[in-house]
Every structure is written in C-alpha cells, then in structure tokens.
C-alpha cells in the first residue's frame, strides 16, 4: 500500500522519493534524472544561449549546482521547475557577463509590433512549404533576445503554463504574460523582416 502510494500511474517512483535519493547522492538516481531531463534541459539551454558548446557546459553546471543545493530543495515544489530555474540562473549569469546586449527586450526594429500589424498579409506563411516555414521560424527565433527565446521555448516546446514559467524565470505572472506577448510580436516582426520579405506587402 505504501509502495503503491509512492508510485505514479506509469510505475515510476514519485518525485518525493526521487528527491530523497538525490539528496543522499544516490548515483543511480542521479543517472536516471539526468537521462530523463537531458533532451529538454539541453534544448532549453540551447535556445537560451544559442551556442551548443556553452549549452553543454551549462547543462553540466546545472546538475553540479542541483546536487550541491539539493539540501535546500523543498520537495513540495516541482523538481522540474526547480531544475529549470537553476539552469535559468546559470544561463542568465553567463549571458549577462558575456553578451549583455542579448538580454535586451526591445524589438530589433525599435517599433511597437502594433505599428506593423495592419499591413501584414494574413496568409503570408501559407505561401511557404511546411519545411520552409519551420526553417523560417527557427531563423526568426535566433534573431530574438535571449529572454524572449526563453519564454517562447518554455511555452511552446516545453508546453508549460504561465505559472510554471513564472516560477522558472522568477518574475511575476503579469510580467511573463507581457514578455510572452512581446516575444511573439518580436518573432512576427523578425519573420516579416528577415525570413518573409513579402509578408508586409
């Protein structure tokens, strides 16, 4: 009965049990946790710093920091959100030191998105083949400031709710919402200017 309570529906041990094992420094629990989150955490860091080598280093630093801080981790909190917030802090520290301009929130054009909305063609993306669209969006994403790439990847690739995003990025809910809106505006602006030159015709 107790064991059943510790198990999730898919048969894996509960997050509380996993956290306890990590706190004891269990190498198997560590290996399992790293394997489980490796692709998602790596993708998040890569989107944030846009540099594969740095993303790998930050990935390793994140797990080192997680194991060092495991005693201060509150099991009532989501482990996933905590893990990503540790990664967020390390990545932002790195960006602040190496590329402070990459954290700039202003749109590349210096204009508010609303200025260009009326002129945008409603079916601009429909003119492109699917793979071209994906490539165009990926390229546009690379033109955005890091903090905008971050909220977009958390929302659309990690499929997180605003509350979870706020916990990871450590800003108020209303700020996450406005940042997400600016990020989407920036993405569209970037698509119009870089990838879809005819979009504003």
């Amino acid at each position, binding site marked *: 009965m107790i064991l059943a309570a510790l198990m999730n529906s898919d048969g894996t041990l509960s997050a509380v049990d996993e956290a306890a094992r990590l706190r004891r420094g269990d*190498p198997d629990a560590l290996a399992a946790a*790293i394997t489980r989150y490796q692709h998602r955490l790596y*993708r998040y860091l*890569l989107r944030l710093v846009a540099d594969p080598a740095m993303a790998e280093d930050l*990935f390793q630093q994140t797990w080192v920091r997680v194991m060092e801080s495991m005693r201060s981790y509150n099991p009532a909190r989501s482990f996933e959100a905590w893990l990503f917030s540790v990664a967020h802090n390390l990545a932002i520290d790195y960006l602040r030191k190496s590329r402070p301009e990459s954290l700039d929130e202003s749109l590349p054009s210096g204009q508010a998105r609303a200025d260009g909305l009326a002129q945008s063609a409603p079916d601009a993306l429909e003119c492109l083949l699917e793979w071209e669209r994906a490539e165009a*969006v990926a390229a546009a994403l690379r033109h955005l400031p890091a903090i905008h790439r971050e909220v977009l990847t958390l929302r*659309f690739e990690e499929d997180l709710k605003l509350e979870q995003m706020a916990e990871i990025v450590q800003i108020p809910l209303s700020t996450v919402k406005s940042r*997400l809106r600016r990020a989407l505006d920036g*993405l569209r602006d970037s698509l119009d200017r870089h990838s879809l030159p005819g979009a504003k015709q």
Partner: protein
Amino acid sequence: MSEHASIRELLSLAAAGVLDPDEQRRVEQHATVCDACRRELELWQGYSRELVRLPAPVAPKYLADRTRARVLEKRAAAAERRWDDIVLAVLVLLCWTVSLVAWVVFRLFNGGMSSVVESSFVTILEWLGASTLFAWLTAAVAAVMLGSRRGVRRIV
C-alpha cells in the same frame, strides 16, 4: 479603448493558449463577428503551431555520461575537502593537547607537583602561545610542501 482594440491586443496570447477562460471566450466570440480579428487570430495560431513543431535539438549522446562523471567528481572533491577540514581540526586539538601535556610534564620534572599547581595563568598562556606559534609554523611548512606535491602531480 474599444472592444475591438482590446481584443486585438489579446490575439497572440489567445493563440498561445495562455489567457484565462473568460478572456479566451471574449476573444473567440469577437472573432466570430469580426473578420479582421478572425484572420489575425488564425495567423497567430499558425505561428503557434510552427513554434510547437520546431525541430527539437537532441542532447549529444555523451552528455549524460560526462555530466554524471563531472557531478560525481565534484562530490568526491567536496568530500575530500570536508575530510581535510576534519583532519585539520583534529590535528589542531591534538597539537594543543600535546602542548599542555608537555608543559605539565616539563614542570613536573623540573619543579615537582608544587610548581605545576602554583604556576600562574600568564605562564600557561605564554607556553600555549609559543607552542601554538610553533605548531602553526610547522603546519604552514607542511601545507606548502603538500601543495607543491599536488601541483607536481597535476602537471604530470
């Protein structure tokens, strides 16, 4: 701000699925009667779909193993540092104990039990200070020697 203008500001977030249910309902209802907003909403929904379908980068195969090794190495180093701290604390205590015992033995052999009992607090402090200084100097020399040995080992 008109209803149309306020709805227009919500379209991107509606397509992103982050509005609360009331706001979402407002946007959807407005989109059924406003062609411009409906087209705009569809466009934003297209962007959202593309973001969801972005090619997902995959972590390199070696990354998990390297990370695990790095974490375990750091933990081992931290454990070694903790052990070094404990050894140092024990050695300091031992050093002080030996100093005090040596002082008592020295006084016993030179003046008998009475010289130990009648000795002043200042005399004991002087002895303790001198022996501590000697012990720290010895420890500093040992630390320098150990440090240089580790440095050589790393270079090799």
